């Protein structure tokens, strides 16, 4: 038996943390539809498992696991892939003043290998510690930290010459 959230609590939680969770879900799935499905399932499951508002690390790890399960469902994956014309959603809110820089940064993040990108996302926008990142991604603590450093080096290389 879990602690049922009030409608206001639930919506406030979605407004506050939903964007970060959606960003991670988008990176873990192949399409926008999959990302939204995974996000919804993970939010509900995490709340039930935590018997109340779950810690962010639990939600991120649930999103990751759900996305892996979904990817293993080959039938659904093929159906999604056949759905042509799905636009690649913007991962970040547009900033009018630094639109060009933001676009370069977003493209640079998207170009990272998934194992590096997820660590950057969990660290920078998820606000997790390296210990929590290690638990979420199922790797040793040192591996999580080194992947983060490699990711930053990669971004630095991609954005060489760009004034940030």
């Amino acid at each position, binding site marked *: *038996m879990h602690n049922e959230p009030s409608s206001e609590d639930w*919506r406030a939680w979605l407004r506050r943390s939903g964007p970060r969770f959606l960003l991670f879900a988008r990176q873990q799935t192949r399409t926008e539809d999959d990302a939204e499905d995974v996000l919804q399932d993970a*939010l509900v499951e995490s709340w039930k498992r935590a018997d109340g508002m779950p810690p962010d690390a639990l939600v991120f790890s649930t999103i990751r696991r759900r996305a892996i399960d979904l990817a293993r469902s080959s039938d659904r994956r093929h159906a999604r892939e056949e759905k042509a014309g799905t636009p690649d959603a913007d991962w970040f809110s547009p900033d009018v003043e630094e639109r060009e820089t933001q676009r370069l940064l977003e493209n640079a993040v998207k170009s990272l290998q998934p194992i590096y990108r997820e660590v950057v996302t969990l660290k920078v926008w998820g606000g997790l510690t390296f210990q929590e990142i290690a638990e979420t991604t199922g790797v040793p603590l040192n591996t999580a930290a080194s992947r983060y450093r490699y990711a930053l080096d990669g971004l630095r290389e991609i954005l060489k010459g760009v004034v940030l």
Partner: protein
Amino acid sequence: MSEHDPIEDALGKLRPAELESSLMVRLSAARPRGETAEKKSPWREVFLRWLLPVAASACLAVATFALLEHNRKKEPQSGEQKITASAKTPLPVESYDYLVSARPVGIVVAPNQQPYRIMDVEWLEYQTVCESAGGPALHTATTRRDVIPVALELY
């Protein structure tokens, strides 16, 4: 995280995109409830775990008992039918067996060294039957063949 890393600073300025209104509506509607109300009901668990199996077992027992009772009531009728049928079967009144022939087939020796002569014998079975006491008699004659061992005496 280095405080002076321009890459980290730039990444930190990016804000994840807000949820679209359609997704917000969808997620709002997915708020955990429903199952909670069901799980909160202790009667539901009692019903599913105890009352339902007990009720199902009781129904099965009643059905079995009714079936057995139904069959039991039928049995005397079957017995009466058997008695009636046997009453109609002619009763043997007199029977004689006549040895018609006896033909030796061979001699065998048992494991205990006792020899036996194997005989092929034919009988005439003469029988008188009557459907009821004092009723008309019916005579039948049938033949019967047997192969029998006859012990031979040793001197």
